[in-house]
């Protein structure tokens, strides 16, 4: 048993780490063994405990039980500073940078010395950073403010920060989630150069193709446990690992290559209902500003017909949020037109648009989609509070009985556990998946003609994801036009009739996945071809790429 630790020179070993958060056992005796100088991938579904386990190694959380060994010696990491002193640096999914400060100041943060920050300190540090970035191919201007940097540049600052501290062990938590394919490839080269320089890399991901392209060995986490420990990638294949990730759920239904969301749903409907001539949503040459006054949407145009699911593919931050806000009436447009059912909605308020048949699933279900401290019933009512049929006896007040009946009617298609309906707990205590289903059911209860679904499956487990997809398909079949945004190309390809690539505030190209959705601008593609083409489009590589093969 565990003879491996004698054979391999282990840089890191985590043994039987348990960590509980309120309501969740995030890690349940998970273990990890990482050899010195390797790229070690940690894979698993969302919620499998990857981030928690590595945050424990990063010193951010204290484990409830279990041990951490560095170079064979047991250590206690009380804080991130402790971890840094042991040569561990972590690049979090949400960067640990202070936007208002400059690159140099950000690198200075959390260092013990010097206490007096003269101009010379800054100059020397800027020079050192320039050296490091030249050495590892991480181009960043150290004089700029972090808020002005792109996401990829911010990630480079994070890596530079770790390098400046001479971290021996670098943890990257889902580093490619925010990158375009081209940027991801650049990152891969940086990581290879770091491995060549003898550093140990721990790479958290749920994208198996990346893992197999980069990592030396892989550990699979499932439900907080390590189900496979340190398998060399050379001795396994993506299918096996995908099966391990999913556990007893058969890999056949989950789809190959760790893209479970493609399963079962891909191209099930080939004959969409008759489409009317006029589109439900027509956006022409839309311009709108971003949060800080920059122009986020620059001439975006798209059309969605009734009974069609339109996907917006693209790296986050290319105008997705602004598009949602403009469509919902939360952000004014600068120029261009937005028409719903043939009428311009530019001057309508959010409430008026809802009356016109718009429903939306917000990007951040906790911040925008629900009021976490209010009960499930209150959250179901959120967009239905002015329904006339909720009124009680005297008309002015609402009737609790009517509300209860209405909430039950909305939630019935979800088949939620009895306890949720009976006890009516606060929405914040629901799991992400249940909450998302609740929001979706609430929005569909409006019988919308246009549904806006921003990242509907972000962070969901496979069961919840399938329910969300099922509900979306049902709505589509009833003639609802649906706009879906997602970072996952495979999800979009499985779900949508047509997908457009959103790059810097414009749709730069489209592909169609079904016959009826195909247009000259959106050629019909097979799913793999569509993925390839979209991948190139959102990387900004191909405005005019070679003709995709017809199906």
């Amino acid at each position, binding site marked *: 048993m565990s003879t491996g630790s004698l054979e391999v020179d282990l840089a890191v070993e985590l043994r039987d780490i348990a960590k509980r*958060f*309120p309501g*969740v056992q*995030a890690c349940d005796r998970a273990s990890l063994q990482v050899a010195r100088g390797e790229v070690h991938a940690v894979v698993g579904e969302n919620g499998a405990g990857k981030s*928690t386990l590595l945050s424990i190694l*990063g*010193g*951010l*959380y204290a484990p409830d039980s279990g041990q951490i060994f560095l170079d064979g010696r047991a250590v206690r990491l009380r*804080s*991130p*500073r*402790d*971890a*840094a002193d042991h040569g561990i640096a*972590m690049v*979090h999914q*949400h*960067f*640990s*940078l*202070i*936007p*208002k*400060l400059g690159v140099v*100041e950000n690198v*200075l*943060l*959390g*260092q013990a*010395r*010097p*206490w*007096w*920050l*003269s101009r010379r300190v800054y100059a020397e540090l800027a020079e050192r950073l320039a050296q490091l970035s030249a050495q590892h191919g991480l181009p960043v201007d150290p004089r700029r403010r972090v*808020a*002005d940097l792109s996401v990829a540049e911010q990630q480079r600052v994070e890596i530079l920060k770790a390098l400046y501290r001479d971290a021996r062990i670098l943890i990257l938590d889902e580093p490619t989630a925010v990158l375009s394919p081209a940027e991801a490839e650049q990152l891969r080269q940086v990581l290879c150069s770091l491995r060549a320089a003898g550093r140990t890399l721990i790479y958290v991901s749920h994208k198996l193709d990346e893992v197999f392209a980069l990592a030396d060995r892989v550990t699979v986490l499932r439900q907080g446990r390590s189900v496979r420990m340190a398998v060399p990638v050379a001795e396994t294949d993506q299918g096996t690992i995908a099966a391990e990730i999913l556990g007893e759920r058969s890999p056949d239904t989950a789809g190959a290559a760790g893209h479970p969301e493609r399963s079962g749903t891909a191209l099930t409907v080939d004959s969409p209902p008759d489409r009317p001539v006029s589109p439900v949503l027509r956006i022409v040459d839309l311009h709108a*500003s971003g*949060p*800080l*006054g*920059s*122009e986020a949407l620059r001439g975006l145009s798209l059309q969605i017909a009734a009974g069609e699911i339109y996907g917006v593919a693209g790296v986050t931050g290319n105008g997705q949020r602004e598009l949602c806000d403009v469509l919902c009436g939360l952000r004014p447009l600068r120029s261009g037109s937005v028409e719903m059912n043939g009428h311009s909605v530019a001057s309508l308020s959010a409430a008026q648009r809802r009356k016109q048949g718009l429903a939306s699933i917000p990007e951040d279900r*906790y911040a925008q989609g629900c009021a976490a401290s209010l009960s499930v019933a209150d959250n179901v009512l959120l967009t239905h509070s002015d329904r006339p049929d909720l009124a009680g006896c005297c008309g002015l007040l609402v009737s609790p009985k009517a509300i209860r009946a209405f909430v039950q009617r909305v939630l019935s298609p979800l088949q939620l556990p009895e306890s949720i309906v009976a006890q009516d707990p606060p929405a*914040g205590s629901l799991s992400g998946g249940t909450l998302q289903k609740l929001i979706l059911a609430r929005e569909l209860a409006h019988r919308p003609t246009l549904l806006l679904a921003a990242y509907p499956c972000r962070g969901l487990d496979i069961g919840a994801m399938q329910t969300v997809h099922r509900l979306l398909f049902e709505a589509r079949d009833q003639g609802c036009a649906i706009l879906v945004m997602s970072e996952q190309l495979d999800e979009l390809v499985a779900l949508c009739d047509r997908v457009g690539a959103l790059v810097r505030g414009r749709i730069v190209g489209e592909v169609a996945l079904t016959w009826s959705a195909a247009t000259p601008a959106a050629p019909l593609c097979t799913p793999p071809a569509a993925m390839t083409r979209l991948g190139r489009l959102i990387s900004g590589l191909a405005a005019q790429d070679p003709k995709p093969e017809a199906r």
Partner: protein
Amino acid sequence: MTVRVFLENLLAAGVLRGVPLLFAALGELWAERSGVLCLSIEGTLLLGALAGYAATLATASPFMGLLCALAVGLICGLLHAALVVGLRVDQVIAGLGLSFVASGLASMLGTPLVEARKVAAQLPVIALPSLSAVPLLGPLLSQHSIVLELALSVWLITALVFSRTRLGLDLTAVGENPSAADAMGLSVLRLRVLAVVIGSGLFGIAGASLSLAVSPGWVEGLSAGQGFIALVLVIFGRFRPSRVALGAFLFGVIRRLPLDLQGVTLPDFIERSFLRGPGSTYVLDMLPYVMTMAVLALQTVRVRRAQSETTLRLDDAPWALGRPYHRAARHER
């Protein structure tokens, strides 16, 4: 009375009136830069004023009084920090609550002092007769209480800390993005407690500067909302020490203005208006509060306009201001 004499007197008295505001605003700046809103400012200031005055009465040394006020401020700061940083109570309601407790305590403990009718020593006045010839600032420079020097040195230190030291950088980080600061190995808890305690200590000193130099003596409700004005001054100063100082002195002058205007003969139409009738002093006394609201309105308009411009400009306020930080909460969201 010539305009020049009027202005010189106004400046001499007004700048002095700005001193408590400056102490208090700088204290608030410390706390707010670390992300903690200190609404306890008014009560702490009152308690500091009382402590300073009482200790001076007891020891006959105004410097002991100053020290006592500082100590009281620090204790209030610890209590406030325990509530909002430790227990993560809502910062608004906790600050107001603490403000009430401190005001109540001050009025309770101060009653005997009001009745005793004794007069405590004041902080010494610095006389520099050679500077009296400086135009406009002459009377101010040639003779002023030592609190002015003290306030300016606190201001200088604060400015240096936030622009040139690691502590300032760390506090800024904690105020902007506590979870990032935490991940960088900074102790959010420790830094915020430190900032709140230092800030509250300055509130205490602000109080003492009031009762021992600016409006010597102790009466109930001595501060008359100056703590809250200082709160607004931080916003006016865009969270930067230099502009905060400017605002404090400006508001000191504004506070003083109604008093000085009483002795001046104004044009006839004003003399006959409600501004001169009985009860009119109260209308003029509103000036600082009205100005405070005007400042708030202008400030937010400015921020809004800046946001609509194409240039990148972030809001001045620390992002995490008023938001309690809990490491485990990272997981929930």
